[in-house]
């Protein structure tokens, strides 16, 4: 039972991010592909949900589906900025943000289509950037004040996971509630 409970931890439906400081070219290619697919998968995951369903927490005490969609856009804007900082400065120290407070601001109550459109466009630019990076660029680093040094390979791991992580929150909620 304990194993089963761990397997369906509603916070981590696909497990935690695999943080690898160095990826092989094939591992990189797979993760870039996942980033390219995230906006479409998120759109499919939320398709047809009513406003009341969108305003349902994905787990008890968690964000609503609507907040989660806006959070993915917020998070990936910050990530896009961090990739560019690492590509244009030597080991920049990035600015973290308070994700729970951000999710409480008024723009997180907006229609999700705005952030789906934001995410689609953002990922298109991000993928052009990632596909044009040389292998050595993925060894460039940024400094996160709380985590320490992060390579762009590791950041790619984190964000390819992050999008799928939140898509899985929505699909798991739909299954539990029978919203199919």
């Amino acid at each position, binding site marked *: 039972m304990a194993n089963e409970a761990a397997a369906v931890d509603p916070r981590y439906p696909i497990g935690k991010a695999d943080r690898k400081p160095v990826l092989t070219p094939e591992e990189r290619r797979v993760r870039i592909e996942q980033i390219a697919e995230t906006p479409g998968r998120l759109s499919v995951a939320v398709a047809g949900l009513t406003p009341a369903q969108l305003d349902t927490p994905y787990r008890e005490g968690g964000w609503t589906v609507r907040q989660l969609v*806006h959070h993915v856009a917020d998070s990936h*804007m910050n990530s896009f900025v961090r990739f560019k900082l690492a590509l244009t400065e030597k080991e920049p120290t990035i600015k973290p943000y308070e994700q729970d407070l951000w999710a409480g*601001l008024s*723009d997180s109550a907006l229609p999700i289509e705005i952030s789906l459109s934001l995410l689609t466009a953002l990922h298109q*630019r991000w993928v052009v950037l990632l596909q044009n990076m040389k292998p050595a660029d993925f060894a460039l680093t940024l400094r996160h004040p709380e985590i320490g040094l992060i390579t762009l390979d590791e950041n790619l791991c984190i964000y390819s996971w992050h999008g799928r992580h939140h898509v899985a929150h929505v699909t798991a909620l739909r299954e539990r509630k029978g919203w199919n």
Partner: protein
Amino acid sequence: MDLQYPIGKLKRKAVLTPDERRAEIARIAEIPGQMSVALAGLTPAQLDSPYRESGWTVRQVVHHLADAHINGLIRLKLALTEQHPTIKPYDQDPWSALPDGKSAPVEISLALLTAVHQRMVVILNSLKPADFARTFEHPEIGTVTIDMHVGMLSWHGRHHVAHVASFKDRLAGK
């Protein structure tokens, strides 16, 4: 006409009156649509032409505007959720030289800008007057109030729209 500063240089104001604030927020809301109009009809070769001698190409200007206002939305949210946070500036020229800024279709950044501005405007319209006095620290500029940030975003968007519009006017021999 000054090709680099078609609408003049930015004048920073730490405090706006309620009317000035309303006008600046309305201008911010209009910028994505104005950029879309300014770009309409330009060919790929024209998009890849510098908007002025030795300046960025029109394509780079559009992607730069999206980059800048993503950073602008992030700074606004930081100022509203932390006490006088120090924000991270970025080096705009090397950013504009990255492959996405040099080569991606402009439609991508128009869509990005539209969504970023929608979120920005909703936040700004929901703030109480006192919130506009909240601040962030820019390591190079110093203390920036949200009022000043609003003025900067409005000027910055119109500044780059005017680059594209004046480029198109010159192409048409106006």
